[in-house]
């Protein structure tokens, strides 16, 4: 199974995983790493490296989700940029994490990463506009 690691500023990632589990139920092979004020770049790199080593031989790879490009979680992840079994995706949100959990047994690593990025982009909508469009559609039926 492809592993999912969510690396963020503060507890955002931990709580995001909890939110996804409310919807999908308990999940295996999921890790959260939180960056606090006391933590440096090197500590975070080490913690990511440790998780990547877990079951690395038979593992189908891992996806590192980070909150934003330029932040320490993203910078720390870049240490693993040459690892072919690792994909790194920024801007993590709930639909992206859910897509990762839902499809990680259906797609190989690179395709899963592409699907997650696509789901993330599709999840940002003008909700008022979309709703009003639907209302007018329902009324015209």
């Amino acid at each position, binding site marked *: 199974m492809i592993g999912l690691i969510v690396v963020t500023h503060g507890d955002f990632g931990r709580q995001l995983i909890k939110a996804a589990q409310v*919807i999908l*139920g308990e999940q295996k092979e999921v890790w959260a790493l939180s960056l606090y004020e006391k933590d440096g770049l090197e500590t975070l790199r080490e913690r990511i490296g440790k998780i990547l080593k877990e079951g690395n031989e038979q593992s189908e790879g891992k996806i590192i989700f980070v909150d934003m490009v330029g932040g320490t979680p993203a910078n720390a992840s870049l240490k693993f940029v040459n690892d072919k079994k690792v994909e790194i995706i920024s801007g993590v949100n709930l639909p992206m994490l*859910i897509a990762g959990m*839902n499809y990680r047994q259906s797609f190989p690593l690179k395709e899963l990463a592409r699907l997650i990025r696509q789901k993330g982009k599709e999840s940002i909508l003008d909700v008022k506009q*979309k*709703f009003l469009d*639907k*209302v007018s*559609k*329902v009324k015209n039926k």
Partner: protein
Amino acid sequence: MGIVLVRIDDRLIHGQIVENWMKLLKINHLIVINDFVASDQMQKALFSMAIPDHTKISILTIAQAREAILNGQFREDRAMLLFISPQDVLNLINKGVKIKEVNIGGMHYSPGKKQILRAISVSKEDIQAFQELDRLGVRLEARMVPDDEKIDIMEIIKRETEKE
């Protein structure tokens, strides 16, 4: 294939339905059955927004649902029936529709109800409806998401009613 799952969930269509149950059971037609929701344009729009683009959705009154099911309209689909309450399920069965098993996913707390499971609270009327469904031989399993343990809701109700 026809009707794959019958569920009571008073939030009707939400994350657990769209991202979990529908994907697992490959549902392609969601059918919400409730007389009030069927006449509410806002709710209809809201639900049609909540589902994936390729999925069909029907929001029907109990009478409309009876017609559609008895006419075999969902025979080619993998359909999921969604109800707000056990009373609505009972009502549909009493109108001649056969239902063997009902999944109870969420019935939320409001004053006057009693919480019997993490996501299930029931009123006296709910309990009566469940008892009647049980008498008619309908299997009633409480389960929020597919990976949760299946719980026989009648055992919980028996325990609760014996306490009183």
